[in-house]
């Protein structure tokens, strides 16, 4: 048997090794160094009403969720209907429009429904950098003391909402 005919098989098994490992990785999960640390403070204009500002200082003493999103982000559209559903369940969801054109972002909210109590406009993405935004959408659960307790990378799924976010909110609210 000539060795060169084995090359495809060897390459294939290397690939299988990676695929096998990949099965047990979550492509959307990036460990955040910010978990357990205070959420970076910011003050930013409110989307659609730049005369007002949203500040993390206003949120002291409240449990809230910060969802970074953008109109150019496909995965955000995927989670959007779920966010709208969350609104109906009084989940304190705040938005951060990340590196977006204001009108485009407003268009999306108009088109798909607005799940946010307030959306802060992070047009140049500086706040996103402070939060270590790796790819939108990302969602942070922030407790009463302003500490980040959980970070959801990628769209919120019904599972992550049920198994992680809702129990955590219950715990933090108690």
């Amino acid at each position, binding site marked *: 048997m000539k060795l060169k*005919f084995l090359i495809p098989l060897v390459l294939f098994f290397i690939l*299988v090794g990676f695929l096998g*490992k990949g*099965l047990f990785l979550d492509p959307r999960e990036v460990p955040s160094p910010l978990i357990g640390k205070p959420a970076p403070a910011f003050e930013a204009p409110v989307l659609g009403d730049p005369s007002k500002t949203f500040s993390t200082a206003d949120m002291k003493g409240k449990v809230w969720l910060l969802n970074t999103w953008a109109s150019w982000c496909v*995965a955000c559209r995927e989670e959007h209907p779920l966010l709208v559903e969350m609104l109906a369940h009084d989940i304190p969801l705040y938005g951060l429009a990340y590196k977006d054109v204001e009108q485009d972002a407003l268009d999306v909210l108009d088109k798909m429904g607005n799940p946010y109590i307030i959306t802060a406009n992070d047009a140049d993405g500086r706040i996103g950098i402070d939060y270590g935004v790796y790819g939108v959408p990302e969602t942070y659960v922030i407790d009463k003391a302003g500490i980040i307790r959980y970070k959801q990378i990628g769209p919120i799924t019904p599972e992550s909402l049920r198994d992680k976010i809702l129990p955590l909110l219950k715990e933090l609210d108690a």
Partner: protein
Amino acid sequence: MMPDIGHYALILALVVAVLQGVLPLAGLPKNNEKLFAFATPMARVQSLLVILSFIILDYAFYANDFTVYYVATTSNSNLPLMFRLAAIWGGHEGSMLFWVSILAVWTLAVTFFAKELPLRFRSSLLAVMGLISVGFILFILFTSNPFERIFPAPFDGRDLNPLLQDPGMVFHPPLLYMGYVGFSVAFAFAIAALLDGRLDVTWARWTRPWTTAAWVFLTLGIALGSRWAYYELGWGGWWFWDAVENASFMPWLIGTALIHSLAVTEKRNAFKAWTVLLSICAFSLSLLGTFLVRSGVLTSVHAFATDPSRGLFILLFLVIVIGGALTLFALRAPSVGLGEKFDLVSRESLLLTNNVVLFTATGAVLLGTLYPLLIDAMNMGKISVGPPYFDTVFVAIMVPGIFLMGIGPIANWKKASVPDMASKLKWALGISVISALIVPSIMGRLSPMIFVGLLMAFWVMSSVFTSMKLRLDAIPSGTLTQKLKTFGRAYNGMLLAHFGLAIFIVGVTMVKGYEREHDITMQNGETKVINGYNFKFEGILPIRGPNYIAKQGQFYVSKEGKQVALLTPEKRLYPVQGAVMTEASISINPVRDIYISLGEELEEGGWSIRVYFKPFVQWIWLGCVLMGLGGILTMTDKRYRIKKVLNEQSITA
């Protein structure tokens, strides 16, 4: 009751598929013809049972049987019938049943159209297809049963994702799957040949039409998907290098290489081991695509169900099927041999280069698709690979290949001469360079990419005409049609497909180079001039569809006083899923599309709208259709219809 029958039919199909897979192979060592004789009837029964269970599931969609959990999650009683029937492949479980049903269709086709194959060979061919079917039916029954019931049944279904409610949904998945799964036939041919240790010109001749058929389906399927994305997603894009798109594109690239390599094997008895390897690779990439899409190891805009147990099952299946095939290849290919020798400059070596180019391109796409996974698996962080990588690398790899594509058809088999080819093609090259400069001067802008793109397109076109002219001149008498007939359909099909690729390149180059995007706001009754066209906004009409309500904009487009089109983009609300969709409206003509999508109603009145001008964009899909037609023409060549090729071992040039 009905869904249970469907479930039982699938279980029964599994049992029969096991027999179809095992009995003929058991007969191989002693050449037991009694065992071989099981293959065809078992294959037919198995296929019909699978198709029966598919029909029963689709009937549940037709009848709005929401006791079936899968129907309840992907359909709705208000969904138009066409979409209800297509909703069967709108989710994971149904897609898998659809996959195995398409395999059943191909298996049936083999039992009917491959009668001239020797019994032993046909039996092992069907056995391999049976074993593939076993794997997929097991997967469906144990991890993704579409017949699962839900009690009490919901009053109505959760509806099909509105994005999928489009005629594209009816035709794109079947074509794509026919292509994907069709490579299983070439794969089974290769395995049967390796098992037999028999690999000759006849083998290549049997395989060719089947491979071309799968390739044609895949070409048309991908093109249709691209066009669907173009008008449905509302951004005017036609290819996104998304993981799922790549999963269909990789088998296409390898399939294209395989078609060319089979041509060499058939005509020159060369590239034998290589052709077998490509046959294995084409189907392996189809399976890998299924794995990538179904397991959730990669993130993609095509959000499908993700479940590690499903992923593990498919991975195990991949190891058995591909690992087994490649092991067999390693053991048997050395005895198959490489085939006839050829010169460094010859049509063979040009086709070999074509294969290397297509193989490298596939590797680049595979690497880009899997790179995030590789990096993550090695704990080196998280990255994503976007269109800039794919565009750059893919174009860089393909340009030399396309240049050689212009030379290939005029090169002689075995030994060609460079000065001779150069003198034949000097006019083609001259015309191409000049045309690639003239067109940008008409369009008003020249960039290196535009020049290279147009040069390649004109080069392929002019070389197609040169090839035809050389052939025509070589025939001393007869009218043009008589002469064309003597070419043979395989040759004409090849030229047509090459011409189609050139048309495709024109489309891509012109769109990339000259598209325009305008974001504007318009008041009711306002007229604006964009890119030389008058747009008159005549307001918004309320529209009621079968399962949605919509606002429809009325835009009258005219140029120099002449009415061009009435464009009616919509914003639709689908109440069941609470989803809002934008429906673009497009005015199509051969040299430009005007693409308009409705933005938002503004507080101060009027609407924001987005207008795209897409020059020559239709050529992208026209080119794909021509490639597909070329493939069909090739398949109907009479030498594949001769029943008695069986013992003919001579090489026809």
